[in-house]
């Protein structure tokens, strides 16, 4: 069963990471365009600065779910590591449930937040703010899904060996 959750989490995450990479690339190109425009083309484009902020928010918030899938999010572990394994895992599962509650809250209120952006102008492309505000409920919903999946995948065993540190060193 744990395998199924693991596979589902990884599958969703690989799609999300593809989208995130595309957003990051657009972000880089967008900021370059702003610089080149001001210095060379003199088109006086009104949108690169605004679009950069919205791309950054979409990319970073979507990546939050990716961080959940990979257990990247930073916490203090000194105290919980001295507790007996059974208690520790129970507490960590409880923390996952509470985190899930937090993201469900953000997703739920995020929907009306995104709706509140619909009648408001974003000042670029004649668009409303809704597609940009939608980053909040979409990212929170994705994070909630990932939290459920990794909760059952790990059942509190995930800080027995933190994954991220080793991976970084391998890249060198």
């Amino acid at each position, binding site marked *: 069963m744990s395998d199924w959750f693991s596979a589902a989490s990884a599958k969703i995450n690989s799609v999300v*990471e593809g989208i*995130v*990479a595309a957003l*990051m*690339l657009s*972000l*880089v190109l967008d*900021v*370059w365009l702003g*610089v080149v425009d001001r210095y060379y083309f003199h088109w006086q484009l009104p949108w690169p*600065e605004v679009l*950069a*902020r*919205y791309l*950054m*928010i979409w*990319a*970073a*918030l*979507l*990546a*939050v779910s*990716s*961080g959940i899938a*990979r257990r*990247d*999010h*930073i*916490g*203090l*572990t*000194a105290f*919980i590591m001295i507790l007996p394994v059974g208690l*520790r895992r129970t*507490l*960590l599962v409880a*923390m996952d449930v*509470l*985190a899930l509650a*937090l993201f469900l*809250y*953000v997703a739920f*209120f*995020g929907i*009306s*937040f*995104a709706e509140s952006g619909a009648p408001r102008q974003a000042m670029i492309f004649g668009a409303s703010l809704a597609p*940009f*505000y939608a980053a*909040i*409920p979409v990212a929170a919903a994705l994070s909630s899904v990932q939290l459920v999946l990794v909760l059952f995948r790990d059942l509190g065993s995930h*800080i027995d060996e*933190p994954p*991220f*540190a*080793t991976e*970084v*060193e391998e*890249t*060198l």
Partner: protein
Amino acid sequence: MIVAIVFVALILFGMPIGFAIGLAGVVGLIDMGGTQFLAIGPSKIFNGLNIFPFLAMPFFILAGEIMNDIGITSRLVKLAQVLVGRFRGGLAHTNMLASVFFAGLTGSATADAAAFGRTLVPAMVKEGYKRDYACAVTAAGSIIGPTIPPSGLMVVYGSLMGVSIAGLFAAGVLPGLVICIVCMAVIAIGGKRENLPKALRGASPREVWDTFVSSLTALAMPVIILGGILGGIVTPTEAASIAVAYAMFIGIFVYRSLTFKGFYAMLVRTARITGVIFVIIAFAGILGWWMSFERIPQLIAETVLGLSDNRYAVIAIIIGLLLIVGMVMDITAILIILAPVLVPLTQQVGLEPIHAGIIFVLALNISLMTPPVGACLFVLSSVTGEKLERISIKLFPFLIAEIAILFAFAFWEDAALWLPRMLGFAQ
């Protein structure tokens, strides 16, 4: 009170700090008035991140990723090695000096931590430094970034309090250099105990020259960035995107080692690291809104400031207050909320406005690396995978040294105002 208990309990039980901050904030909102205030959450998340200068962080992380991948970093490290390798802790000293140089490029400590966390920390680890120590050195040096101009925080302070920004910039130069020197002294003193590596023999002039030549492309990078800023081509935030452009250019056309697959992985990793840091900033927005609405920082300030009206006591209390609040709150929020409460007091005890400003900026910069809420710690922890608490322990001597420097400049007006006075910004 209940908010504080929830926050501490969640953090102790291993909940990621960003989520714990978020839940504490939500508990605060519910405590204030049932469900009435809950709608504020998504808006604080979005608007807390909707800030253009935040781009510097992901861009410097990405530039660091590329530099590592194509070998720019290792060439620079090799150069540092042949130049200072025979000194114990040579690379740690290099890290500190590099922060001074980098400070001229950026106004943000997190950009410094992001750039060095992806480049110098892994290089130091490879040379035999413990990772927590390498992170601590980087964190200690990162606050030189917003101390030596340009400085984002000084711009905010200057326009908020009506103090000359150029004057604050001038006042930051000396403390920035002193922080570097004192931290290098801390490295030197602790070098034996930390068992920092050193090379067995010095390099020959020939080796030095060859290494220098092979790292020219790398050395050109800061020159190009600085040229872009001072030449009026880019803002400090956009400069980070120039770093990405240059690293890509070298990777594709000079070293020809940057692959599409590699670049894809770098983009994803950059976004993930950014997401980890931004989720903390975002949720801190909810907690900060609750604190503002309940006027909690002002309450604390009023309570503490009734204690004395002696000049030095007031300065010490203000610094203490900033450092303590700085442990749990984002520094820009502190600046906006506490500066209007505290700065009039500094005027009552006769502090020069620029002097008061530099005390504020230094104290808040130091707060960037005090746990549990310290943006530089978060960046380093997520960029390197090192544990927050382990970095914090190794950071302790540096933290003490920097707080001592802060007090020295706070009590010794002539030193703090030497450069601003010379340039005519202060009497």
